């Protein structure tokens, strides 16, 4: 570690330590997958605090809008953020998906209008991709938008929309060329959420809590200019966005995983589960696989990764989603017969149970295991496409 890196690390650590000791102290460990329903107001305030201090968009490649840290610094930032158990981000969809897309495909006017709100932590976004009848088939878009003078009129339904209930805007893939098929004729529209034509209905999950939504567009309106890329060429924009998911934040995610595994390991030592050699073997396996994920992340973030590991996003997703799902199973096994009892009525789950239940979503959302395997087989192994 260089002195500059150490200093940078200390700076972030100090800042987080200070900020998370005051009003925000209670937010440590709050939010994130499976807990997205927690502390919404306080976490919104935390987003603004991050924005003030310039810690939103640290990896954006355009220094007009953020710190434009180098890769190593971004790694440090995400590691420290995770290590401090700082709260799960509410603004990550804007920060990690929308802004990179705008920086790559947007007009200067769009950048100037939309990026600062994300950077300040004031404006929240959600992602209108999945539809009820589409499943993993993203190109099966039924939502339509018609240009009517100076505005788009949008009609259709999206589903699995994280944080739609707190979002100010939604980026929506809609079919703008009537009669077009599959990937053609789609547009990437920016639609304000606070209007009569938009209805958000939370989806109650198997945990009894909600963090995904159905979003209904019923003659909802977007400004004619609020289309990213060309109208009708939205598929390319939408797909390039998928490439922005994860990346360097993986290392932060792994620190969260480490913390989860440590808690389970400690519990196993306390309650005697670790004395069962077969269960101990499973715990070590989980630890081993976590190290392998770390090595894979290091390799796929290295200098020449684009050339050496073009498959990184798919391999990483399969590895972490399956690992996390197994971790949920392990947590329950370590808990033993007590694992079946919840912590209270009406349906207050334990951490183990929440992990166990919610990690089932990991292998389904964000590109299911099956989609990742299809992509690996076609693009990276060169196997022929399944006949459609």
């Amino acid at each position, binding site marked *: 570690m260089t002195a500059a890196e150490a200093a940078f690390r200390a700076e972030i650590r100090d800042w987080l330590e200070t900020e998370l000791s005051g009003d925000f102290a209670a937010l440590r460990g709050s939010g994130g997958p499976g807990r997205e329903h927690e502390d919404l107001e306080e976490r919104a305030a935390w987003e603004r605090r991050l924005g003030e201090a310039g810690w939103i968009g640290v990896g954006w490649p355009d220094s007009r809008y953020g710190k434009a840290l180098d890769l190593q610094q971004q790694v440090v930032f995400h590691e420290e953020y995770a290590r401090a158990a700082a709260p799960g981000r509410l603004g990550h969809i804007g920060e990690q998906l929308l802004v990179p897309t705008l920086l790559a495909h947007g007009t200067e006017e769009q950048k100037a209008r939309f990026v600062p709100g994300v950077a300040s932590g004031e404006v929240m976004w959600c992602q209108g991709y*999945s539809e009820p009848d*589409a*499943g*993993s*088939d993203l190109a*099966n878009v039924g939502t339509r938008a018609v240009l009517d003078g100076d505005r788009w009129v949008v009609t259709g339904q999206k*589903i*699995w929309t994280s944080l739609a209930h707190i979002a100010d805007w939604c980026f929506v893939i809609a079919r703008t060329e009537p009669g077009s098929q599959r990937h053609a004729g789609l547009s990437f529209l920016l639609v304000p959420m606070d209007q009569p034509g938009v209805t958000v209905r939370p*989806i*109650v*999950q*198997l945990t*009894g809590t909600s963090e995904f939504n159905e979003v209904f567009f019923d003659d909802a309106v977007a400004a004619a200019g609020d289309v990213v890329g060309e109208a009708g060429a939205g598929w390319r924009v939408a797909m390039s966005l998928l490439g922005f998911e994860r990346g360097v934040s993986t290392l932060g995610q792994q620190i969260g995983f480490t913390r989860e595994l440590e808690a389970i390991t400690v519990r196993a030592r306390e*309650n*005697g*589960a670790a004395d*069962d050699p*077969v*269960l101990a073997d499973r715990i070590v396996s989980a630890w081993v696989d976590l190290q392998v994920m770390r090595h894979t992340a290091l390799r796929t973030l290295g200098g020449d990764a684009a050339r050496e590991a073009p498959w990184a996003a798919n391999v990483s997703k399969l590895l972490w989603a399956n690992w996390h799902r197994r971790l949920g199973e392990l947590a*329950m*096994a370590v*808990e*033993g*017969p*007590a*694992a*079946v*009892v*919840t912590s*209270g*009525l009406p*349906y*207050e*789950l334990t951490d183990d*149970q929440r992990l*166990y*239940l919610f990690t*089932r*979503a990991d*292998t*389904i*959302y964000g590109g*299911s*295991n*099956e989609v990742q*395997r299809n992509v690996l087989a076609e693009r990276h192994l060169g196997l022929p496409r*399944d006949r*459609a």
Partner: protein
Amino acid sequence: MDLTLTEEQRDLRDAVRSLLTKQADSAAVRAAMASPTGRDEPLWRQLTGELGLTGLSVPEASGGAGATFAEVAVVLEEAGAALLPGPYASTVVVAEVLTRFGRTDLLPALGDGAVGALAQREPGDRSWPPRVGCVGSRNACSWLLTGVQAAVVDGGAADLLLVAAVDGGAETLFAVAGNAAGLSRAAVPLMDQTRRAADLRFERVPAVRVGGPDAVAFARDVAAVAAACEAVGTARRALERTVEHLRARTQFGRPLGSFQALRHRAADLFTTVEAAASTARYAACVVATAPDELPVVAPLAKLVCAQALTDVAAEAVQLHGGIAITWEHDAHLWFKRAAHVQHTGGSPEQLRRQLAPAAGL
């Protein structure tokens, strides 16, 4: 041993299935699990009274139907398939134990919907077979029981409890009335909401001795077989529903079930379920006709069938996709039931350790 169903068993299965299809569909199950008692009272009265299903294997002389546990197993599979909330499994285990140990005089009024439950685990105990913690002490012509039992399924509603305890250094099985003096019961909430459980505290509670270590072991083993049969029913239904989904749902312009990766996974699950079903059926026949084999066959059946359900429920979620993560779909009910069966009554590792001598280790 012929493990195929007899004509009568098939009729029984069809009758129960038909009834539960109407009376215990998803909406009814959800209503029952949200109700104060955790069961559909009219349905429970029908199952126990009119149909006499909790007394199926009780001798006719004792007010039962005089069938065997092989018939009970048929009902358990259907109850598992429907995720029928209520104390069916708990009650038939108690009835089987009392019948086997010649104590049908202790049977509560099964025809009136009476409930039995088996208590066999102390709080904090994660060993298997479970540590026996309650203590029975002789008191003139009866026994008094003292101790605590954790998360006893159907323990809150039970009219009669069977309790594993220690008496003079030996494992002993006692029967305790649900309304006995000195017994306090506190509901504990379960992740599997189709079940109810209670912590039980015994303070010098009058008890009747049912039998010694063999009775404790028999009760534990019959409970394991019952859990196995129920699990097979749930697994088979979860797979059927998943296969229906694969047939009906289209993606990329074709039914999901035409994607070979998914078809192969469904085929493997089918193999898993039918193999487990064979073992559950064998175990049920063993309860009925060859109880000497039970100490090996019972943990084996529980191990295999709990794992089968665990595998099927997990894949059912994955193969259904996003909808399976929602509260409104039944997949989470199967999945939570799977966890319940897997983590109670001995973990897979513990059950394999229990079987090691039989395997020659």
